[in-house]
């Protein structure tokens, strides 16, 4: 088992690298490997392919990697916090919380909220507030199924308000928001990647500082408490990190479903561990794989039809989750 883990430490980064290369080189315009290299070594702003690589391809690849990793880690935290494999930032309403505040911001038409910082800020606040709401419910709803249903209801409720807001906004703002709501990895510009990257790094560093508590939480709240863990601060830390990771991705890519739900389960199945140090690695790398593959599929279909990334993640993710439910709850 542990030697399998060590092998994965070498193997998975290699496959991720290969996938990332394939991803960068895939698309409407044929780009060669040497052009990719030269766009980095001696960038020529008059060379169309160089511009495509630097302005579109590389940001999109990096976004897929960072967003996949972030959403998976957020899902891992939610599943451990709520001790349920069916928890995730999307299903608990955290993503729709972020969507809601982003909508509020965008639809006001105030330009600050349409800037990067404004978008990021409103998504983070939304994710955090809705994380706290579901956490509050979790204190008096011990039944996890009820909690998940509450999450779904909160999601529907906020979407309803969001759609009302949409109907009273200008067609221009409506279009911005609708496109955002479909979820996409290709709208992220190279400047925004820095935001996503920094949030990801901060999120992971904060996560590492909570590993002791998160590992103990696997045994349940009472046991963790008897092992000296301060549950209140652990819960708030886990919600905050989830809000940062999921909120940041949602801000720039729109709400992307199923990654945060499916990948933490896949990580536990493949790595057969409850140690969150290993699971952090597993979710980071498998999440990146998953979103790269999902996005590659949309790229391959682009000449025929434009498929939103959410359709692919759901087409792969939903049957997988159904399998897990059937296996676990039969």
């Amino acid at each position, binding site marked *: 088992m542990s030697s399998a883990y060590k092998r994965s430490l070498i193997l998975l980064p290699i496959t991720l690298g290969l996938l990332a290369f394939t991803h960068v080189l895939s698309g409407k315009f044929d780009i060669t490997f040497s052009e990719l290299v030269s766009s980095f070594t001696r960038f020529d702003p008059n060379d169309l392919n160089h511009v495509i690589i630097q302005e579109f391809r590389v940001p999109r690849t990096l976004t897929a990697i960072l967003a996949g990793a972030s959403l998976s880690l957020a899902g891992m935290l939610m599943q451990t916090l709520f001790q349920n494999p069916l928890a995730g930032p999307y299903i608990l309403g955290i993503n729709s919380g972020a969507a809601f505040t982003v909508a509020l911001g965008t639809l006001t038409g105030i330009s600050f909220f349409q800037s990067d910082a404004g978008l990021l800020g409103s998504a983070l606040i939304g994710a955090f507030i809705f994380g706290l709401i579901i956490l509050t419910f979790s204190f008096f709803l011990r039944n996890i199924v009820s909690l998940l249903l509450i999450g779904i209801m909160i999601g529907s409720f906020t979407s309803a308000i969001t759609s009302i807001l949409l109907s009273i906004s200008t067609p221009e703002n409506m279009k911005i928001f609708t496109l955002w709501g479909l979820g996409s990895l290709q709208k992220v510009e190279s400047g925004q990647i820095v935001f996503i990257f920094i949030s990801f790094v901060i999120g992971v560093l904060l996560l590492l500082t909570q*590993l*002791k508590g998160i590992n*103990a939480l696997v*045994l349940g709240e009472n046991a963790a408490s*008897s*092992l*000296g863990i301060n549950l209140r601060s652990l819960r708030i830390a886990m919600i905050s990190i989830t809000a940062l990771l999921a909120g940041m991705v949602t801000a720039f890519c729109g709400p992307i479903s199923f990654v945060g739900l499916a990948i933490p389960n896949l990580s536990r199945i493949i*790595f057969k561990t*409850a140690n969150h140090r290993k699971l952090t690695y597993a979710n980071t790398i498998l999440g990146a794989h998953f979103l790269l593959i999902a996005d590659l599929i949309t790229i391959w279909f682009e000449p025929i039809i434009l498929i939103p990334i959410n359709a692919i993640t759901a087409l792969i993710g939903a049957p997988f989750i159904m399998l897990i439910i059937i296996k676990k709850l039969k």
Partner: protein
Amino acid sequence: MIELKNISIGYTSTLIEVNEMILRPGEIKALIGANGMGKTTFLKTLMNQIPPISGTVTIDDISLHKLDRAKLSSLVSFIGHGFKGVDGLSVLDYILLGRTPYLDRFGSISYVDKEVAFEALKSAGIKSLSGLNTSELSDGQLQLASIARALAQETPYIIMDEPTTFLDYRNREIIFNLLIDLSHKGKGILFSTHELDMVSKHQIPVAAISNENKMILFDHCPKMEKLIEICF
């Protein structure tokens, strides 16, 4: 020592009144009482999960409400019931979680932690189980693993909520013998139980919650008939 003096225990109304009760390292006590008389509430009070209605609990002369959770976890370990194992959590990793109070915030496990965990595995007699998945263990094995986890926590006191529920005769024997053995090795052990026959067979001192909501202590296990009359 864990000391309770003139304490009433319960959530809003008093469930149990304790005049005086002391648990020293090296002592073992069985907590006996009818269903709903407050055994679990009593144990939760000792774990500082709920405050007593009046009076204080002291552990090694420090009153319980002044102990922070981290300090308490290096003095008292707690084994609740109902742990069914976790998918992907190996027995060794489970026991290593007992080292939580001594780890840094990153949860880094040192060589010493591993040594202590292996020692705990040996003491609980489950060395051969170390690589197994906790979700694959039998109830008896799970209970032994939980005791090993508490041993890895290296606390002078261990508190257990019904450690032998759901166990067959042989496993109950194993657990009782292990607990007595651990008390001989210096651990202070308090466990709630319904196994009057086992308690009386092994002559374990008893703390009984009476029908009148009083804690009655027996340094020598009384006759079963008497216990039944007091408690049930």
